[in-house]
C-alpha cells in the first residue's frame, strides 16, 4: 500500500511536470498538431513573414539562387532564416535575383520585377 502511494506520488509529479512543459515551455499549437505532416505546417509560427514571402516568390519565379539587399543581410534573423528556409534554393551573393525590403529604395541598376507585402523582387 505504501509503495502504491509512493508510485502515485511520482506519477502525479510526472504528470505535473509534463503539464508544465506542455503549457509553458513547448510552444505547442493545436493548429499545427491537426496537420503535422502538411508541407507548410507550422511555418507561420516559426518564421518571420518576410521569409515566408521570400520563399513563395522564389517558388513562383522558379529561380535557382537569390541575393539579399545589404539591409536584409545585416539582419541576422532574416538572413539565416531566408537561407535555411529557402533551401534547396540557394543564397548566392553574386546572384542577380535580389530581394529588398519594401521600405528600401531600389538602386538604379536594378529592375523591379515584383512588389509584395514585405519584399520587392528585383533583377540587378
Amino acid at each position, binding site marked *: 500500500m505504501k509503495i502504491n502511494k509512493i508510485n502515485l506520488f511520482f*506519477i502525479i509529479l510526472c504528470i505535473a511536470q509534463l503539464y508544465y512543459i506542455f503549457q509553458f515551455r*513547448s510552444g505547442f*499549437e493545436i493548429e499545427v498538431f491537426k496537420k*503535422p*505532416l502538411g508541407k507548410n505546417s*507550422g511555418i507561420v*509560427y516559426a*518564421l518571420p513573414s518576410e521569409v515566408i514571402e521570400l520563399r513563395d516568390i522564389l517558388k513562383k519565379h522558379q529561380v535557382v539562387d537569390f541575393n539579399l539587399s545589404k539591409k536584409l543581410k545585416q539582419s541576422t534573423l532574416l538572413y539565416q532564416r531566408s537561407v*535555411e528556409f529557402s*533551401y534547396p534554393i540557394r543564397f548566392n551573393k553574386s546572384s542577380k535575383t535580389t530581394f529588398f525590403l519594401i521600405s528600401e529604395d531600389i538602386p538604379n541598376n536594378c529592375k523591379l520585377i515584383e512588389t509584395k507585402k514585405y519584399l520587392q523582387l528585383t533583377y540587378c
Partner: protein
Amino acid sequence: MQINNLNEKITLILSFLILNNYLFLSLSFPSILIKINFLTLLFIILVFYFKNLLENPFLKIFFLIIIIISLGTPTYEWDPRSIWLFHAKRIFYDNSIFSVVDNYAIFSHNDYPTLAPALAASLASLIGHWNEVFPKLSFSLMFLPPLILIFSFLKSTQYLFFLNIVFFVIGKYLFNGWVDGLVAVYFCISTFLMYILIINNTSQYKNRILYLLIAFCFFATLTLIKNEGIALLFVLFVITVLIKLAKGDLRRDVSKLLLLSFSFLPIILWKYYCYSNGVGYNDYINYDILLNLLPRVQEIKNYTLISYFLFLNEKFLICLLFFLLSFWIKWDREMFSFVSMILIFYIFILFFIFLSTPYDLYWQLNSTAARVVKSLSFLLSFFGLYNLRNWTVVK
C-alpha cells in the same frame, strides 16, 4: 529476467539501427534501404510498445505524450533551425551527409556531427517531403534506447523517480529539436555502462557481451550527436583508465577498453573529412586560442562569472544536493569517486573552453551554460538514484 532481456535486445537493436542509418547515408546506399532501415526502427518501437503491453507502462504513456507535443510544436528556436534541422534538410535534399563539403551557410557549423540530423532526414524521406514540424520527432525517438535500457536496472518506483529526473533535467529538450538533451542522456548512461562493465569488478553485467555492444553503440552515438559528446567520452575514458591504474587492475579490462575506444573512429573520420576539406567554423581550436585565453586567465572575475553560470543553476544545485544526500545515506566509495572525478575533470574542461571563447564571455555563458550543465545535472541525479536502488528504510 526474460522481460529485461527483451529490453536489452530492443535497446541494442534501436541503437544499432540509428547508427546504421548514418552508415547507410555515409556510404551513399540507395534511399530504399535507408527507408527500410527507418521502418525497421519504427517496427522495433512498436514491438517495445506491444510485446509486453503492460510492462513499463509509464515510459510508454509519457513518451506518447512527448510525441504528441513534438507533433504540435513548430521548430522556431535558433540552434535547431540554423544548425540541426538545417543539416537534416540539406541531407534530405542532397541525399548525402557529405554535401557540407561546399561549406554553404557557414553559420550552420558544417563540421558538427550529423547523426541526429541524418535520422531526421531519413524520416523526411519516408514521409516524402520536408516541413517545419515532424522531422525533429526523430530526435525524440533517439531518447528511447537509453530510457528503455534503464528499466532493467531500477524497480518500478525508482523508475518513476528516474522519469521525473528526465522531465526535470531534460524537459523541453525532449522534443524541441535541440540535441543537448540527447547528449546529457547518452553521456549519463554511457558513464553508467562504463561503471558496470569496467569499474565495478563485482558487477554481474561485467562479462555480458550484450552490454559491451550496447556500450559501444552508445559511445559512438554520444560522439556523433555533438562535439561536446567527444569531450565527455574522452573524460570518461581518461577517468576510467586512471581509476583502473590506481587499482592496479587495468590489464584485466584493457581488451574491453581497447574495443570500446574504437567508438571514437566514426567521429575521427568525420572530423578528418571536414578539416581536410577546409570545412568548419573553428571557434575554439584555432591559432587565437591563447590570445583569447591568456588575458582571461589572470582575471578572477572571469572565474566568478563562469562559476555563477555553471553552479548557480537551480537544476544543477538540486541534482548535486540529491547526489550528496544519496551518498550520505548510503556510502559507495567506488561509485562516488568515479562520478565525482568525471564531474571535476569535465568542469575543468568547461572552464578552459569558456575562458578561451572567441566571443564575449558573458554572452557565451548566457547562451550555453544552462544547456551544457544539463549533462552534469543528469549524471549526478541518476547516480544518486542508482546508489539507492537497494536501499530500504530500517524501522
